[in-house]
């Protein structure tokens, strides 16, 4: 499966506030890629950088093998997005909104094309209604129609279920799955709800305070046999370098005073043995219940470190 998006060491600093910190991840063609993090984790800032709304302080974004900074127009022609709220021209009809954004996307617009898109998101009957008369769910669906009107390869949806009622959330979920399975689109979906990502994404990344916590296949990351281990040593840099060359390098991250590893629970004794044998002075080694518990702990209390409970 080919890589569609590659983000390398992306950072954004707003007047001293580090919103995104050295973030790297890849999205493959055909993925429904979950972008998970609590509110303020840096999801929207990252998505805005992917869409050129915000300029990165440093790092590279490579779409379709091309550097975004140098190929903005070409990349955006292949990308559709809804960023946070689906704000549209409220004084115009659904049809007019779609027509305007189709034109801006360089699409040769026909009545059939626009009505087909409205049909896809279930708004064909309200084509001539002004957007100000729409519910939040209808606006969200129209926003997705706008994102899809130019038949992009990649669709980026930032918190698409925000403000929706349970039926709206279910409809949105089905629409995303339809886009992926039936239309073969690659979708990046951000959310602060793990359950939501779990239901639609095949791969995901979790970020916190602008930094990557873990990235991988959803079913593997949420496997109950897997756990996140937080390790503190006398020399974290040396321990990190050692682990980078080991079999645990997959979910490895150096974050503050901890080294985090995403690994099988059964491998924890082997890890401890290897570190001791290598002369690494272990101060603490804390396995968590699961990735889900770990994410919830991030959501419930910033910087809270749970003690070993199993």
């Amino acid at each position: 499966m080919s890589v569609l998006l590659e983000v390398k060491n992306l950072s954004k600093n707003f007047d001293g506030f580090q919103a995104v910190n050295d973030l790297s991840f890849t999205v493959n063609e055909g993925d429904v890629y979950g972008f998970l993090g609590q509110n303020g984790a840096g999801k929207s800032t990252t998505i805005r950088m992917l869409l050129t709304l915000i300029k990165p302080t440093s790092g590279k974004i490579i779409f379709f093998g091309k550097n975004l900074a140098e190929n903005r127009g070409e990349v955006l022609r292949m990308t559709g997005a809804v960023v946070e709220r689906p704000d549209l021209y409220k004084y115009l009809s659904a049809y007019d909104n779609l027509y305007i954004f189709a034109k801006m996307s360089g699409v040769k617009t026909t009545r059939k094309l626009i009505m087909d898109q409205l049909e896809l998101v279930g708004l064909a009957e309200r084509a001539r209604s002004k957007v100000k008369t729409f519910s939040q769910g209808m606006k969200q669906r129209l926003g997705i129609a706008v994102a899809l009107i130019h038949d992009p390869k990649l669709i980026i949806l930032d918190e698409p279920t925000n403000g929706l009622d349970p039926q709206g959330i279910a409809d949105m979920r089905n629409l995303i799955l339809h886009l992926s399975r039936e239309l073969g689109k690659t979708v990046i979906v951000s959310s602060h709800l793990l359950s939501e990502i779990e239901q639609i994404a095949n791969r995901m990344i979790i970020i916190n305070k602008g930094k990557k916590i873990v990235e991988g296949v959803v079913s593997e990351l949420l496997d109950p046999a897997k756990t996140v281990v937080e390790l503190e040593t006398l020399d974290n840099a040396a321990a990190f370098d050692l682990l980078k060359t080991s079999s645990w390098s997959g979910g490895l991250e150096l974050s503050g005073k901890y080294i985090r590893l995403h690994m099988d629970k059964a491998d924890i004794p082997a890890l401890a043995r290897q570190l001791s044998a290598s002369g690494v002075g272990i101060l603490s080694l804390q396995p968590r219940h699961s990735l889900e518990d770990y994410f919830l702990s991030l959501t419930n209390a910033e910087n809270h470190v749970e003690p070993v409970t199993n």
Partner: protein
Amino acid sequence: MWSLLQIELYKIAKRPRTYIAFVAIAAIAFIFQFAFKADGASYLNLMLQTVSESFDLDLKKSMNGYFMCYIILNTLLIQVPILVALVAGDAISGEANMGTLRLILTKPVSRTQIILVKFLASIIFTVLLLVWMAVTSLFFSLLIFGADDMLIFRNKGQESMILQITQDDIMWRYMAAFAYAAVALTVIAALAMLLSVYAENSIGPIIATVCIVIVCTVISNMNVPIIDKHVKPWLFTSYLVGWKGFFYIATTEDGLPIKGSIENWAAIRNSLYILLGHIAVLLGITIFVFRKKDILT
């Protein structure tokens, strides 16, 4: 670019606030026309107080459509900047406020193109306002008051004078004056658009534009030698009423008006250069700032 411009004009046309300006202009013109139809003679008598002993004027003939339009423009062209700011000040900040700016910028259109298209749309709006002003203040006045030679009352230094322009020498002057006004008002549009880039709602840039115009107008009207020499020549407000120059007809040594002439064409040309310079600088800064701006709304 043409397609983007069509979209921009369509959006402007669909917004109710766009029409406030047209209604306001029509209302002001009709109020003036009604008042002058009812009692224009008193106004003319008042204006002619200082010169009535030197000239023998036919008041009825003087109160014609051309004269009426000149009176209306004197008032309107001071207020119109506010109306231009209503649309240009909303260009970017309005999109930011609605949240549509981030959607626009995720489309394969460059930020420079967006500014240029919005600026062009503001110019078209300004020109349409002036065309509407011509219809309401010139053509309707001609219908109501008829056509005749036009009298211009002019204060030149300590001197008051009356200039008479024959009716076959007037229309081109009005066309030139409206074209000049379009350039002058485009400076206001460029200023409002620059302020619009910094704001996330329309009210701020509209009020800020009006305040800047008021402050600069006050400075332009101050009679302080150092300001006269070093500040006024560079202030756009010093040239907003430059359209009047097209009505200052040149005269012979005997004081007779020369048909088809302008007293000081060089001054008008210099005014236009300075106004165009303002437009270029303001637009350049707007593009520079907008290209660098992080969209956080």
